[in-house]
């Protein structure tokens, strides 16, 4: 039997859920097909940074819109998702590094972006007393913060279900075809049909795009995370550095979360990641160098998730240039979490109205595609 709807979302991560939610709230019937379980890969293993700090220019408009939505996330999904806006800081360990940050802020100001600010050593120390003494200053976005992925996922799932989205777990898409304005999605012995389609298949989204005729090359990102035992309040903002691979924060449970982009071994076919302890040691060494007091803390867990990595490390979000009614949401390159609320809105707007109220032209898939079909400029929606 073929199940029909107005829209089919492939992928039950946060981006798929957010797109499904926004479509459903606009009165669209939505089927979401997830191969495994909701939040199985990148979303469930996210460090949940809510960061506009140091984002690429093309992502900034949508990231800033998303930030407004995070500050009111409870009205969107009925839960505050553990979001707290304690700021994100990029630390400079030398004057040369601080100059790099100053140059960035100057460039942003020229383009009219004022959300990033330079702070000096004194303010840095006040905000992050546990930081090593040699740090000379940093770059801060005070409205940035972090959320709890284990609250965010169920909140988006509950909201999507409440909005009427039909969620199928354990349904892996094996084939796509498009005829007479209708997408047909084959998944084992099931089939779905709808005029609108969202590709939010995470690390596997390149394969789904290929089924639809779009060649969007993606590599894989599998960043490793360390979480320690719980300790008393130690650090409030999320801290990264100019010169080291490090992202450092304390969760609301009191554990320290240490990331930084060191990569696990991974295999897309078996959907697995393997911790690479030698690389993980570099991440730990960076953390200990920046926060000398933590060397004796016990590590409780380590993990890594799988995400799509685009060639320019920037999200890919936009209508297909070749296939009608198809929205790609992929290639988040390990920093898609913050974009979830606003890209859901942009997806619904693009699919239903053909235009997004926020400029995401710079994220369009065409930039990474080898061939762009002629006559598809209608997809280049602008806001």
């Amino acid at each position, binding site marked *: 039997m073929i199940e029909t709807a107005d829209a089919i979302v492939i992928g039950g991560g946060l981006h798929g859920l957010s797109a499904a939610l926004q479509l459903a709230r606009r009165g669209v019937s939505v089927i979401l097909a997830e191969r495994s*379980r909701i939040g199985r890969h990148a979303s469930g293993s996210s460090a949940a940074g809510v960061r506009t700090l140091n984002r690429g220019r093309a992502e900034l408009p949508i990231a800033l819109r998303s930030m407004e939505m995070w500050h009111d996330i409870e009205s969107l999904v009925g839960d505050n998702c553990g979001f707290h806006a304690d700021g994100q800081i990029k630390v400079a360990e030398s004057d040369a590094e601080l100059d790099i940050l100053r140059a960035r802020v100057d460039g942003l100001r020229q383009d009219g972006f004022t959300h990033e600010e330079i702070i000096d050593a004194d303010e840095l120390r006040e905000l992050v007393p546990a930081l090593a003494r040699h740090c000379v200053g940093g770059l801060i976005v005070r409205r940035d913060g972090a959320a709890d992925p284990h609250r965010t996922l169920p909140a988006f799932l509950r909201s999507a279900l409440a909005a009427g989205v039909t969620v199928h777990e*354990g349904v892996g898409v094996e084939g796509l075809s498009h005829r007479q304005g209708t997408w047909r999605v084959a998944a084992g012995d099931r089939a779905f049909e709808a005029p609108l389609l969202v590709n939010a298949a995470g690390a596997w989204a390149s394969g789904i795009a290929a089924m639809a005729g779009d060649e969007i090359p993606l590599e894989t990102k599998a960043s490793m995370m360390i979480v*320690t035992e719980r300790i008393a309040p130690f650090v409030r903002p999320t801290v990264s550095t100019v010169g080291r691979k490090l992202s450092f924060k304390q969760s609301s449970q009191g554990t320290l979360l240490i990331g930084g982009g060191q990569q696990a071994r991974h295999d897309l076919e078996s959907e697995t990641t393997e*911790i690479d*302890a030698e690389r993980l*040691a570099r991440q730990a060494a960076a953390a200990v160098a920046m926060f000398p007091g933590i060397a*004796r803390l016990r590590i409780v867990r380590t*993990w890594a998730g799988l995400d799509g990595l685009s060639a320019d490390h920037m999200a890919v979000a936009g209508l297909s240039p070749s296939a009608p009614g198809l929205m790609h949401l992929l290639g988040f390159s390990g920093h898609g979490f913050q974009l979830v609320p606003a890209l859901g809105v942009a997806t619904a707007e693009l699919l239903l109205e053909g235009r997004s109220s926020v400029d995401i032209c710079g994220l369009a898939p065409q930039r990474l595609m080898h061939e762009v079909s002629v006559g598809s400029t209608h997809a280049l929606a602008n806001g």
Partner: protein
Amino acid sequence: MTDVLVIGAGPAGMSAALDLQQRGLAVTVVDDLPSPGGRIFAAIESREAHGGEERTGADLAARFRKDGGTYLPATEVWQIEVGPRVFVTQSGKARILKPRFVLMATGAQERPMPFPGWQLPGVMTIGGAQILLKTARQIPADPVWLAGSGPLLLLYAHQLISAGGAIAGVLDTTPTGSVAAAAKFLPGAVPYGWRDLARGLAWWVGLASTRTIRGVTALEAVGSDRLESIRYTTRSGDTGEVPAKLLLVHDGVVPSLHSTMAAGCAHQWNDAQRCLEPIVDRFGRSSVPEIFVAGDGATIAGARAAIVSGKLAAIGIAHADGKVSAQDAEVAVAPLRRKLASAARFRRFVDQAYPPVEMAIPDATMLCRCEEATAGQIRSALTGRPHLGADGVKLATRAGMGPCQGRQCGASLNRLIAEVHGVGREEAGFLRIRAPLKPLTLGELASLDEAS
């Protein structure tokens, strides 16, 4: 240069190390304890050996000290990667060992026995109490209540009384009639285990005058800050409550799976022993060709069988390394296999007489003690989500995220998933085991980077 890294210096690890060295392979043995013997022969070098089995253990430890290769005591294995590459810490420093083969001889752990209140101070496992008795001569000041089933309960009761301790009573969860049902396996058990049977009978007789409540089907530890009393229900529906300061529980032992799981070895469900165990071939080789498994970590069979299976794995590794021909290996393992088959017949009797009980887990039970997730929360997270496995329910409830690495809740999570989804225990799956397998500090991990 190490040809073979043996993880665990218990009976299986020590005997394998001796045989491997003798066959010309360079062995390194790592073990988390400060002296050889494993849990069963803990501190065997510094105490008097009781009985033949302990004398065998003491002799094995002495020979192992002399000819067992490089021995790294008080060393924790916290990660195993393909290669194999094994990451250890010793005295606060991390290092990588790159042997050609790994023999996992990591032994057993007690089957977690969750019930409401089991997290209260004053409740602990019999195995834990026995280690304290063996290594530190710790005898509880007040009479203790024992609850559960299995030979270890009888053994500990005997050891405690011999050491001058007192037992308040036994809450026996052994299913009624199981000993009678086991009788048909008794003839097969006698050749290998007649001494154990005689000892077990003596322990059992020694408990005859102890207050015993039989047919217990449910337990609850009651108390505000610590254990104050125990409530119980029996099969006939009787309930009761007894005051208690210390409750020791036991429901048999299961293979300690974290190392083989982390190494990516395939596992299967052993229904007789109600546990997962690594799949090994006739030589103890796992599904990962460089990794062999011996002793209770492969399948629960006890210390004497572990010694034999260590020898068998040593031949398997020597053969895999080309040191022994296939024909010679077959000849060498034939008598070992006969001994193991004999041990298995004895085990079948024990498993029938003391089958794993796996008491029902009420919703109020704090299944994951580290993260304080109850069985009720876990059941409700699983309900209606047939694709939510162990890792999914972990994300949903935090169960299994804590410092014990799921050692206390992993098996119970597996049970609840099978129960709610109506699938077999093997299909229900186990938590994904990740580094660190053993406690590891940020500084220790960072020391690996400084070293390289």
